[in-house]
């Protein structure tokens, strides 16, 4: 269909306006001079300055990034293994339970996951802090990773692995040299997903963090509870920009790769 109907154009415009206007307002008012977030009083970047001097926020950001890096990396390793076991492991005892435990956290309300982990940590006398948040995030993020990776593994031609074995690879080498490079895009997107989930998480982190470790979402939440503040607007703007740049870059890179692959295939057909 070349021309969009009037109805479709309107619904798309309204829909995307609904999705984006709140964020645009947020960004605009982060440059507001006034402390009153809803009244425009001239352009200023002073809230960014204040934000950068706010030790508590910077500390929380640092904790959050540490937690996200560690937990997403561990989640990627564990989730990839879990996906491999699910898709390639054949039958083993308790396989149903295993796949249940992979899928259940995806639909489990965060409050329950958080509560149950907290009760565990208290039960075994583990002090709450960065370490417990990392454990908690790893656990629920690995399930997401394993879903992403296993959906790739399902379509993976098994004879490639067999060919590698046939040519003298040990099973571990076959995985490292053949399987992993091919499923790498899925593993990377699994990692990214785990990373953002961890960056984003408020509820589970609130349950599993201790006084020694406050993450950025916890900090934002307690600040926001008291009402709108321009500092938070500035912080949000920074976070939104990072994500936007990241997503746009990623999509441009994929687009470029797809185009190149197409060109190469066409060249091959001509040859």
């Amino acid at each position, binding site marked *: 269909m070349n021309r969009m109907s009037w109805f479709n154009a309107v619904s798309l415009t309204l829909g995307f306006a609904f999705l984006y206007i709140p964020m645009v307002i947020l960004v605009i008012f982060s440059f507001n001079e006034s402390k009153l977030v809803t009244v425009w009083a001239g352009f200023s970047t002073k809230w960014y300055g204040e934000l950068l001097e706010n030790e508590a926020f910077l500390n929380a950001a640092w904790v959050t990034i540490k937690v996200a890096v560690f937990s997403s990396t561990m989640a990627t390793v564990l989730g990839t293994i879990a996906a491999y076991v699910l898709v390639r492991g054949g039958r083993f005892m308790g396989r149903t339970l295993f796949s249940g435990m992979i899928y259940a956290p995806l639909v489990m309300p965060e409050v329950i996951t958080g509560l149950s982990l907290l009760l565990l940590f208290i039960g075994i006398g583990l002090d709450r802090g960065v370490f417990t948040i990392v454990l908690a995030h790893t656990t629920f993020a690995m399930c997401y990773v394993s879903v992403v990776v296993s959906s790739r593994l399902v379509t993976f031609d098994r004879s*490639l692995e067999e060919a590698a*074995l*046939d*040519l*003298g690879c040990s099973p571990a080498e076959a995985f490292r040299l053949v399987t992993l490079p*091919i499923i790498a895009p899925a593993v990377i997107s699994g990692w990214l997903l785990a990373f953002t989930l961890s960056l984003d998480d408020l509820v589970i982190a609130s349950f599993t963090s201790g006084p020694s470790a406050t993450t950025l979402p916890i900090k934002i939440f307690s600040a926001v509870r008291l009402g709108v503040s321009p500092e938070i607007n500035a912080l949000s703007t920074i976070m939104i920009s990072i994500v936007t740049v990241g997503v746009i870059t990623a999509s441009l890179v994929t687009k470029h790769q797809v185009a190149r692959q197409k060109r190469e295939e066409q060249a091959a057909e001509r*040859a």
Partner: protein
Amino acid sequence: MIHFQNVTKRYGEFTAIDNLTIDIYEREFYALLGPSGCGKTTLMRMLAGFETPTEGKIFLAGQDIAPVPPNKRAVNMMFQSYALFPHLSIWENIAFGLKREKMPKHDINDRVEEMLRLTRLEKFARRKPHQISGGQRQRVALARSLAKHPKLLLLDEPLGALDKKLRQDTQFELMDIQEKTGTTFVIVTHDQEEAMTVASRVAVMDHGKIIQVSTPDRIYENPNSVYVADFIGDVNLIEGTAKLNGSDSYAMSWHEGHAPLSIKSPNAFSDGQKCHLAIRPEKVAISADQPAEADNAVQGRILDIAYLGNISTYHVELPTGAVIKAQTANTRRIARRAFTWEDTVWLSWTATAGVLLAD
């Protein structure tokens, strides 16, 4: 070189390979032929080490290979789907197995170049698998599996994806390579013509069992069963009962009111035993008048003519209702064909033209 000893493979209840004993010799081009699902791939995968026999043993050069994992076997397999590594270039694909052997770098270079020359792929060395054509991919797969000098190369329907012309070219290429390298080839194919072309010996399988193993000409001329005769090439089967008539000749009565057929057969039959005469269409002569000196001659009416270019097949209906196929080479232009539909003709063949097979 390879010896299967009473090998059975079961998947749960299902028996894919049934108590199979075969030998494959050195420098042989061995073709496995059989209908879909008869266990050809299973046999190959047991040789390559991806499946273990449920019962029985497989020996390679006198050694039981059961405890040897696939990566330690001097056996390479060329996969039906080629299984080329999509993230590696053609060059790296071919070098893949050599690198696993920790071969020195320049030796790897030499060997890969040699394989590229052999398969005429020099120009494509830097490309990725998705950047070359199907036929080229197939040659890469072959080069990759040959690069390691395997004692035994397994080819699972290697030419399945190619068109007929490319297929024939590649068949000759395969034979050429096999002669040059002296590797033992085991090839699986659906295509009996292909098996006859390339193989030095052909094994016909059915339901996990080997029915006959022999050279292509013997399989064709001397099938040991109705199944093999029917599976390989075109054949006319006439059912009847045997009666001894001299030392190795039989008179087979096949229909009341018709003279028994006289057949020479090395296989022994008792009087009155049910049997089948299997006779290839090209061994049945067709003529307008009753041939004077034929061991067997029957009269019939032409039902159908299939013109295949170089030959024509006549479907002739006998008064009994049976249809016999006769083939003649088209040495003349079609306009001057001697017979046409509904003509009454005589079919004749010699006593040694067919084989007599038990039920």
